[in-house]
């Protein structure tokens, strides 16, 4: 049903690893992006960005370890990333954080779609829930409405 599945259409370690690599790439981007978010928020408002960045570093480390255990070379961070819009204010920073967390949600929904192992789904569903909780706070800070999403990470019907 999904692209990226095995040649016979089944889910296996190969499909799972490919999805994990994309999730890892999204985690690298989020870690970099939260540096921008924190800088734009200033010292007084930086704590949520630092907490989020730390959470993404933890997930990155877990995924790298998982792939390493499977003798798969983990995807590395890009040398640089282009921002989707200028980040000149606290509201811009919050909006960037929303983009980052929404990207994370999409990547981890993809992992759920492609995973073969129950333990990987357990990791994915935990990361996904945490990302949406953070995204709700950032949407509020960015003045977005609604602040919640019915189906984080899934394309609209």
């Amino acid at each position, binding site marked *: *049903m*999904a*692209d*990226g*599945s*095995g040649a016979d*259409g*089944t889910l296996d370690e190969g499909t799972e690893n490919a*999805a994990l690599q*994309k*999730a890892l790439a*999204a985690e690298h*981007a989020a870690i*970099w*992006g939260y540096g921008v978010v924190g800088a734009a928020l200033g010292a007084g408002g930086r704590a949520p960005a630092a907490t989020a960045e730390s959470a993404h570093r933890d997930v990155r480390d877990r995924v790298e370890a998982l792939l390493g255990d499977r003798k798969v070379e983990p995807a590395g961070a*890009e040398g*640089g*990333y*282009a921002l*989707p819009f200028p980040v000149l204010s606290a509201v811009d920073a919050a909006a*960037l954080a929303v*983009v*980052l967390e*929404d*990207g*994370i*949600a*999409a*990547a*981890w*929904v*993809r992992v*759920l*779609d*492609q*995973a*073969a192992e*129950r333990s990987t*789904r*357990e990791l*994915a*569903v935990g990361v*996904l*829930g945490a990302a*949406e*909780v953070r*995204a*709700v*706070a950032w949407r509020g800070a960015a003045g977005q409405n*609604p*602040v*919640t*999403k*019915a*189906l*984080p*990470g*899934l*394309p609209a*019907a």
Partner: protein
Amino acid sequence: MAPLPAPGITRRTLLAASAAGVALLVAGCTSSPPGGREAVTNRQADALAAQLAVQEGLVAAYAAASKADPALGTAVTELAAQAAEQLDRLRKAAPNSTPASAGATSTGAAPAGAGAKAWLRAQVGDAATSHATACLDQSGARAALLGSIAAGLRGQEGRLA
């Protein structure tokens, strides 16, 4: 020489990974051709039907809380609509499921007044946990859908704090 353009953190980049793989969730699938990756075991189908009942219960909880505390009902209109949207997606993913029994969707009475919000939050949290747990024993698009719904409800739970 001009520098190479840097990879962009764009919605397109970050969302690209998900688009194709889960797009067909919209159509729902519990009866794909035998042998395909979407072949569903009876156990998985039953489990998805159970989550349909959980979500029906949550939609009923929103209605009960709104009746018990009309001001809360106004405040959670959007959240209730999202719970209904989640239910709709679950129904599409489990088109052959029989409707839940009245007992399965019963949420009990919401306490009147200020207690309604805390009660509703507990209902949302319980449903999120149920979907997240059920997600672990599903696969493919069904796992993705349940995980996404669980995450959406975690966000709602936070809003109701």
